[in-house]
């Protein structure tokens, strides 16, 4: 036992590593929030303002990140895309949770036949590859940002409902939950007061990691031209428009891709960091 305590610095290092990542993720995300709010405080050219004489221009004093094929300022479009790209990802995640949370909780608490039927229904949706199902739904609704939000939410919720169910099931195994039932607390009270507080921390990890993958999927759809439609400033759509000018104006390609990567990275770092903080296991050292 003593020796295991001696190896604790290793554990602390791991924690610190997780915290460092968490801090970086939060800082990155805050950076995006500041960037997204900056048009309110700083004077920035409107994202649709064209300067046809300066098309495909590289970085300069007037256009710090250059201009695109219509002479629009890339920095301005990048900033105005923050609420669109991140907002769409968070809206999608909210929609997913709105279905997955009640679905998973009800299935876990009700148990028996209700649980079986609900999970069977979720399994049917999960039997399709998620992105394929999202593509099909978008195909039937017609390409737009709303359609891709609905398509992704419809394809993504069952796996989340499954995770919520698993979390609630393991949370309701605890003795104090049984004690609450025995002392005559109603189901609703047990769920709200005793189960949800246990579920929330691991749920935060899932939400953060899932929002990252939703953001990736949404920007990919916009890149393919079936998500956000021009002239909406959106990172994936900006990359799509940059494709024909690949070799002439590489700056158009670099910046929106970096923005998507940084935003997804921020969410992943937060998710992984939180997971490390919650992880109390101590693997044996070899």
């Amino acid at each position, binding site marked *: 036992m003593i020796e295991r305590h001696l190896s604790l610095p290793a554990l602390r290092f791991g924690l610190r590593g997780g915290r460092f990542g968490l801090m970086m993720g939060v800082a990155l995300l805050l950076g995006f929030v500041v960037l997204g709010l900056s048009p309110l405080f700083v004077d920035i050219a409107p994202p649709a303002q064209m300067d046809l004489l300066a098309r495909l221009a590289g970085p300069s004093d007037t256009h710090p990140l250059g201009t695109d094929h219509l002479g629009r300022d890339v920095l301005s479009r990048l900033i105005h895309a923050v609420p669109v790209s991140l907002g769409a990802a968070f809206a999608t995640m909210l929609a997913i949770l709105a279905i997955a949370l009640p679905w998973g909780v009800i299935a876990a608490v009700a148990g028996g036949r209700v649980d079986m039927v609900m999970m*069977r229904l979720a399994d049917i949706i999960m*039997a399709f590859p998620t992105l394929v199902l999202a*593509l099909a739904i978008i195909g039937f609704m017609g390409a737009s940002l709303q359609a891709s939000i609905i398509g992704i939410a419809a394809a993504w919720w069952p796996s989340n409902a499954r995770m919520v169910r698993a979390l609630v099931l393991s949370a309701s195994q605890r003795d104090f939950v049984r004690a609450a039932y025995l002392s005559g607390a109603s189901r609703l009270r047990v769920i709200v007061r005793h189960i949800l507080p246990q579920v929330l921390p691991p749920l935060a990890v899932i939400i953060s990691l899932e929002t990252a993958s939703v953001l990736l999927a949404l920007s*990919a759809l916009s890149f393919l031209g*079936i998500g956000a439609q021009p002239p909406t400033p959106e990172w*994936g759509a900006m990359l799509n428009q940059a494709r024909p000018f690949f070799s002439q104006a590489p700056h158009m*390609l670099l910046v929106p891709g970096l923005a998507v990567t940084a935003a997804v990275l921020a969410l992943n770092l937060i998710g992984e960091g939180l997971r490390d903080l919650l992880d109390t296991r101590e693997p*044996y*050292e070899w």
Partner: protein
Amino acid sequence: MLRFILIRLAVAVPTLLGMSVVAFAIVAIAPGDPVMMELRALGVVPKPEDIAALRAEYGLDQPFLLRYLDWLGRAVQLDLGTSIATGRSVVTEIAMRLPATLSLAVSALIGAVLVSVVFGVCALSRNRGVAACMRGLTILLVSIPSFWLALLFIYLFVLTIGWGRLVSDGTWSDLILPALTLGLGAGASLGRVVYERIRAELSEDHIRLAIAKGLAPRRILISHIAPRIVGPLATAWANTFGALLGGVVIVESIFGWPGLGQLILQAIAQRDFPVIQAYLVFMGLIFFTMSILADIVVFFTDPQLRRTLSDD
């Protein structure tokens, strides 16, 4: 063994039926009338009686359940209708491009499995610098969108160094870049699963015993940990394959790989419902088969599961 497969297939039937309902209903409840769209595609200004006649011809005036059964009956015989855009049978259209998509998805999966094992094992390295670097690299690779990575690879390898080309005719050498693009990201996220699984095993007592016996880490990894994580990993591989089936659409269009990607993107743009529906059905079936295969691997590698099933 046979018993397990039979049980698994029997359980699969309701799910398959449910999938067919989803694939059918998604068209039935889609906004926009397919008849109107076909007429518009033909350039005809429809009269109300023409519409009614066409609706009757397609059986669209029948109740939902009858139409579903009729559709299912034809789908089982591989008749999923004709493409509105080309007028050809959608099954032929899809069968033509399916091999290219599957070969890309399979080679990306193989790449991803290799990458994931390297990443997962290195992330557990005793050298903390290496471990931290591998974990950082994993998170970074998971976060890079595949379409952007594809564009970066093209810029680097095709435009700058001059390897590879952008117009592809489906030969194996054209497969490398798209498979690498897809495999790196998928491999990194699989690597997280490998890392998590090994870490979970490392917290178990039998591993503690193996360490106490003085076994070398490699020996523990290969003969104590690997057999126990193959089953869960097979499930993760099947899921990754499902993600790759969707992911190929993104990458195919960038590298000009002649798979299903371009077909489906065109179908979405032209609202070619039969093609989209058939695409959903085929991809669903392929993914479903992979999941069953994964379950069989789980069965094979889990002695406890095998024993309970052969007992009763």
